[in-house]
C-alpha cells in the first residue's frame, strides 16, 4: 500500500460518496419523467441530506447503543468497500486482498447493523422490516455465492481485482455463457440487496408493505442523513461492481492521473446508463408479494448454478 494507491482509494471514495446520492436522484428523475412528471432535481437527495444534517436527532426511549452506532456502521462499511473495490481503477489500496467474498461480507455487516437497530427501537415496524430484510438476505445468499463461484472459475480466485482485470484483458471471458449467466443472477441479487422493485418499493409510504424503509422509520436528523447516504453508496457500489464485471471498459489499470480521469468518466457513464435502465425497469414492474420473492431468488440461484455447470463443462 503506497501513497498513490491511497490517493486512488480517496478518489473512489469521493466518487461514491458524492455520486451515490446523485445516482439515487437520477433514478428518481427518470422515474418521474416516465410517469409524466418533471420530478425533483438530480441533486435532491443531497439537498435532503444537507438539510437533515442540521436537524435534531431523536432516539426511542427503549433503544440502546446499537441504535446509535448502526448508521455509522452502515456508512463506514460502505466507505471501506468504496475505497477497496475495483471501481475506477484496478490499483486501489490493498489490491491483493480485495476479495469478492470479503466485500460481500463487509457490506453485510451494514445490513445486520441496521436490522439490529430496527429491533432495538422496540416498535412493530422495526421488527417487521428486520425480519423481512434478513429473510430476503438469507435467500439471496446462495445465488450470490454460487454466482461468485461461477465468476471465479476462470482464475480459481475470488480476488475481485483479478476477476475484473481478467475480464478487461480477455474479452472472450466476458462473452462466455458462464460469465453471462452469473451476471444475470447477479442482477437479481442487486435488485434484492438494494431493495429495488420488484423486491421492494423504495418510495412506498405504507408501513405494511415496507421492507427496507421499515428499518429506518425511527431515524431522524443526522442519523437519517447517514442512513440515506449509506444506502445510496451501497447502491452505487453494487451497480459499479456490476458494470465492471459486465464491461470493464476504461477502468484504469494504473494509478496514472490521466488513466484515473478516464476511469472516472467511464465508470460514471456506465453506472448512469445502468441506473437509467434499472429505473425504467422499475417503472414497468410491479412489486412482488413477499411470498413470491423466493421464486425470483430461486431463479437467480439456478442461473448461477447453470453458470457453474457451464463453466465446468466448457473447461
Amino acid at each position, binding site marked *: 500500500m503506497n501513497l498513490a494507491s491511497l490517493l486512488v482509494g480517496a478518489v473512489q471514495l469521493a466518487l461514491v460518496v458524492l455520486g451515490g446520492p446523485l445516482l439515487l436522484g437520477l433514478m428518481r428523475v427518470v422515474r418521474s419523467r416516465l410517469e409524466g412528471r418533471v420530478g425533483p432535481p438530480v441533486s435532491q437527495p443531497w439537498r435532503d441530506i444537507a438539510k437533515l444534517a442540521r436537524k435534531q436527532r431523536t432516539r426511542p426511549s427503549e433503544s440502546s447503543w446499537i441504535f446509535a452506532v448502526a448508521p455509522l456502521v452502515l456508512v463506514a462499511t460502505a466507505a471501506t468497500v468504496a475505497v477497496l473495490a475495483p471501481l475506477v481503477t484496478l490499483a486501489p489500496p490493498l489490491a491483493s486482498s480485495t476479495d469478492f467474498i470479503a466485500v460481500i461480507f463487509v457490506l453485510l455487516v451494514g445490513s445486520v447493523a441496521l436490522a439490529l437497530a430496527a429491533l432495538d427501537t422496540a416498535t412493530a415496524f422495526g421488527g417487521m422490516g428486520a425480519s423481512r430484510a434478513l429473510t430476503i438476505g438469507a435467500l439471496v445468499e446462495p445465488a450470490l455465492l454460487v454466482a461468485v463461484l461461477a465468476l471465479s472459475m476462470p482464475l480459481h480466485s475470488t480476488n475481485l481485482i483479478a476477476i475484473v482485470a481478467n475480464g478487461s484483458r480477455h474479452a*472472450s*471471458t466476458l*462473452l*462466455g*455463457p458462464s460469465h*453471462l*449467466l452469473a451476471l444475470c443472477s447477479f442482477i437479481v441479487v442487486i435488485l434484492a440487496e438494494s431493495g429495488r422493485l420488484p423486491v421492494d418499493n423504495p418510495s412506498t409510504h405504507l408501513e405494511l408493505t415496507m421492507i427496507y424503509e421499515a428499518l429506518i422509520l425511527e431515524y431522524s436528523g443526522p442519523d437519517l442523513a447517514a442512513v440515506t447516504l449509506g444506502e445510496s453508496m451501497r447502491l452505487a457500489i453494487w451497480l459499479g461492481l456490476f458494470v465492471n464485471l459486465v464491461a470493464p471498459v476504461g477502468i484504469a489499470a494504473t494509478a496514472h492521473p490521466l488513466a484515473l480521469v478516464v476511469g472516472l468518466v467511464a465508470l460514471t457513464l456506465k453506472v448512469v446508463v445502468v441506473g437509467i435502465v434499472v429505473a425504467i425497469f422499475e417503472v414497468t414492474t410491479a412489486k412482488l408479494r413477499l411470498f413470491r420473492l*423466493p*421464486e425470483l*431468488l*430461486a*431463479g437467480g*440461484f*439456478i*442461473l448461477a*448454478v*447453470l453458470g457453474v*455447470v*457451464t463453466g*465446468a*463443462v*466448457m473447461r
Partner: protein
Amino acid sequence: MSAFANSLASAAVVVTVGAVVVLWRHRLRSIVAALSVQGVALAATAALLGIHEHDRGLLAVAGLVLLVKAAVVPGLLARVVAANPGARESDPLVNVPASLVVAGLLTLGAFVAARPIVALVGGPTGRLVPLGLATVLIGFFAMVARRRAMSQVVGLLLVDNGIALVAFLVTSGVPVIVEFGSTLDVLFGVVVLRVLLARLSAAGFSDLDQLRSLHD
C-alpha cells in the same frame, strides 16, 4: 476460447435456460414464449454447427427447426392460450422455488451422468451434452410437477428439444432425413395435442388431475 465455442455454448445454454423458465414462470403465455425462444436457440445451435462443418444439410435442418419449433409449434400453442390469455399455472404440484431447486439438482445430475458421452464425443460440441440432457430431465420434471395440460405439452416438447440438442451435439447432425422425420413427427404430435387441448378446455378441463374423475 474461440468465438465458435462460445456462441455454440451460449446457444445450448439458452436451450437449458428456456427449460428453466418454463418451470419459473406462471403465465402460460410466458411459458409458450420460452418454448419459442428455445426453438430459436436450437436452430441457432444447428446453424452454428452447420456453418462450422460446412454442412448444407444441417443448415437446412436449422431452417426447418426454426420454422417448426420456433414458429409453428409455439404458434399453435399460443392460439390455444389466446382463448384464455390470462391463464396461469397458479398452483403447481411442486411449488416454483422447489421446482427450481430440483431443476438445479437435475442439471448437476445431468453433468455427472453425461460423463461417458462427453468422454466419447469430446471437443467443443460433445462437452455441451450435459446441457441437452439437463433439458430432457427438466422437461420430464415439468410434466410431473405441473397441473395444466398446456404445461404438460410444453414439458413434452422440452424433452424433445433436449433430445434434439443432444443429437446435434453428439453426431453433428443425425442423417438429415432422420432429423426431418422427427421434427415433422413433433409437428404432427402437437397438432393432435392441440386439438385435444382445445377439446379438453371446451369440456372444462384444464387441470389434468381433474381427469381422474373420468376413471370413477
